[in-house]
């Protein structure tokens, strides 16, 4: 570290060595600066990243996306986006000699004939699940700490859009192998689009290239959407997301010298870089290990898609579960209007509800500002307990989506607990409302009580409790011992020169 840091430090201060004695790194930096003026932007190396653990959630999302792009490119080398039937001649014996789509056959080839192909394919699938999951948890962190408030509303909007695109692209990718389960998912999606009043049948025909299954289902529109168009949009939005982060700087929790006017933490180079590259390797390693060790989407067990075949426990990937659950517990309310059919039993849970969800997500920073009348800029994050109403609404929301997610396995639960499906259904119809309300009220009460307790920002010290001769007890702080660490110190600016020999 010392050579690099000293060299870059020299560069920012103008440098006082002769070119002959300069290190290779110094000369390279000089070479680049002569042509690009990079030294002018080198304060970026000092950019401070807060050290709180919750700030790595967005990084996990970013690194899962990197893994998605890399493994995705690898998969495109072998995947054939075609629903045309071919006779399967691969090593998987139960399907030998059977007619399957080229998409399905090439996915089997990736799984069984390309060395490490199965690991990379499953890694891609796991990475998609982790991508959406880490975005969701990252979003919760932003929500509960109020990090979406002015001046960061725009980045909140970008983030919500990224969540939506991640879900859409996840669904498209899940559909590409054209197995029996994902084919049923496509059938359902087609019918959801079909349910939209006025334009539904046109939209469905355009998106699917005709009446289901159409010819655009996999080849080539959906494939290009999945591997080219949406990834480009996501990459562009991630660039905006991070650009805004650099421009507006991080939020941070109060205490430890953090104020509205500074950022306290580790500098980008080298401390944060080492930690975040470590995190990248850890995320990649865990995803790779999941890809090798934990089976996901074993399409050879489902069989190729045939529109007239179906299997038990048809369920989407987890991030679509809330929509599937909503569809399951919705009563069968089909309406007619001036001689037209309005399939409310589909339209409300699968179009209106997600539409409202994302509208509410987009609008939240502005709704909250309107209610609180707070127009000030905020750089210090809230502790969730200090905002009982927001925290209660958020917790109720999390509970609602979790209940809907759970409702997507009503049939499995009925079988597992040996209760009638009807009982499970009605239990969910009631609890999907009752649980969020209860969670919201309970959260509000807990926040109110917690916020009454003063928060100590001092590091905790061990204490010794002594019994006196009279039978009473006294508490004494232990003295600082050598192994206790240096304790709290005030933050300082990143030194440009560190004076390491």
């Amino acid at each position, binding site marked *: 570290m010392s050579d690099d840091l000293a060299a870059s430090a020299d560069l920012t201060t103008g440098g006082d060595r002769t070119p002959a004695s300069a290190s290779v790194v110094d000369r390279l930096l000089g070479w680049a600066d002569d042509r690009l003026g990079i030294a002018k932007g080198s304060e970026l190396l000092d950019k401070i990243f807060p050290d709180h653990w919750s700030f790595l959630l967005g990084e996990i999302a970013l690194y899962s996306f990197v893994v998605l792009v890399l493994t995705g490119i690898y998969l495109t080398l072998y995947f054939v986006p075609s629903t045309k039937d071919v006779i399967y001649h691969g090593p998987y014996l139960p399907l030998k000699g059977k007619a399957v789509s080229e998409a399905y056959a090439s996915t089997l080839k990736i799984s069984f004939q390309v060395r490490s192909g199965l690991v990379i394919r499953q890694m891609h699938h796991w990475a998609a699940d982790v991508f959406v999951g880490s975005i969701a948890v990252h979003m919760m962190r932003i929500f509960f700490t109020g990090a979406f408030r002015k001046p960061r509303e725009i980045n909140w909007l970008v983030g919500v859009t990224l969540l939506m695109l991640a879900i859409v692209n996840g669904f498209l990718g899940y559909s590409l192998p054209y197995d029996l389960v994902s084919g049923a998912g496509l059938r359902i999606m087609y019918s959801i689009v079909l349910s939209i009043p006025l334009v539904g049948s046109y939209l469905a025909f355009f998106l699917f290239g005709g009446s289901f299954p159409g010819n655009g289902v996999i080849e080539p529109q959906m494939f290009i959407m999945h591997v080219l168009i949406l990834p480009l949009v996501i990459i562009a939005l991630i660039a905006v997301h991070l650009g805004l982060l650099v421009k507006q700087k991080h939020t941070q929790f109060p205490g430890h010298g953090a104020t509205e006017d500074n950022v306290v933490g580790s500098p980008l180079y080298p401390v944060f870089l080492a930690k975040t590259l470590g995190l990248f390797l850890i995320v990649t390693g865990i995803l790779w290990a999941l890809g090798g060790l934990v089976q996901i989407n074993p399409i050879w067990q489902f069989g190729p898609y045939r529109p007239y075949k179906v299997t038990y426990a048809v369920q989407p990937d987890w991030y679509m579960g809330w929509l599937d659950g909503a569809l399951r517990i919705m009563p069968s309310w089909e309406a007619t209007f001036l001689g037209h059919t309005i399939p409310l039993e589909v339209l409300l849970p699968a179009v209106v509800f997600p539409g409202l969800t994302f509208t509410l997500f987009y609008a939240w920073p502005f709704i909250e500002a309107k209610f609180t009348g707070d127009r000030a800029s905020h750089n210090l994050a809230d502790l969730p307990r200090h905002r009982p109403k927001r925290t209660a609404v958020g917790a109720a929301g999390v509970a609602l989506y979790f209940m809907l997610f759970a409702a997507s396995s009503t049939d499995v639960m009925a079988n597992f607990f040996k209760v009638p499906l009807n009982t499970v259904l009605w239990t969910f119809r009631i609890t999907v409302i009752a649980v969020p309300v209860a969670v919201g009220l309970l959260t509000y009460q807990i926040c109110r009580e917690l916020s009454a307790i003063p928060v100590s920002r001092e590091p905790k010290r061990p204490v010794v409790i002594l019994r006196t001769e009279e039978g009473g007890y006294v508490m004494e702080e232990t003295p600082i011992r050598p192994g206790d660490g240096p304790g709290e110190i005030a933050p300082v600016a990143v*030194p440009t020169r560190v004076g390491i020999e």
Partner: protein
Amino acid sequence: MTEVTETTEATVVTGNSNDPHLQPASVHPKRTEKVVAAFIVLAAAGFATYGATYWQGGSAQLQGASLGIGLVLLGIALAAWGKYLLPRGPFMEARHPMRSSDEERARMANAVIERGRLVMHRRGFLGKLLAAAGAIMGIVVAFPVIRSLGPLPKKSLDSTDWLPGSYLVTAQGLRVKASDVEVGGIVTVFPVGHVGNAMDQTVLIHASAVPFTTMPGRESWTPEGYVAYSKVCTHLGCPVGLYQHQTQQLLCPCHQSVFNILDGAEPQFGPAPRPLPQLPLYIDTAGYLRSQSGYDQPVGPGFWERS
């Protein structure tokens, strides 16, 4: 603290190597260094194991474990290096409000608004023309982008390929005879020439040994206890594939709608809003099952144009 904040911008801050901020966070850096070294060595061993596994065509599990553990260990080593062996800080940087000064804002507003007025001054008509042309352009650009993707639905959702006299054929393309299906048996059938079609799929059930009627007006539709319904669920179009002979129910596995096949496939449970359309059957002189006509209504889930 404020002094530092104000001076960080222009001046060089030189750290003293005795400064506690520049000390590693680890209390025992030597020991930490050994642990990090051990992790790096183990990571390299993991990579080598993966290489050997790949070379030998080893299992996906071993591939996943070896390279995965290697990457995780290397990641932990790097993160620990950054967290425990590099300067512990805390460091800080100043933050500046996003808002520009009043002068800058006034300059921007003047430039945009006054120069903007210059553009539109006495040229309102040109502006309207431009907006109209832009609107037309916007609409026609959508044609190739959206309309080219697929055909228009027209009337294709209203009817299926079932015609008067269509033979019922199985997914294997075999015509079904009245003697082929035992009581309690179920076969997925298609109109001849349209095997595998998503909208035409129909379940043929030999529901009963004795003749029965599903609804008034459909007395002739169920010859010899055979009944046929569209297999496309009226909820979201999944194949209604599960038949229970004892309860005479058809179940859709996607969202658990249940239909009673004895009373015209009326939904008994779940989100499906309408009965499955019934296909009128007859048995010809050669004993083959055939359709009297097509379905009397559109099959499958609801849509706007469905009346």
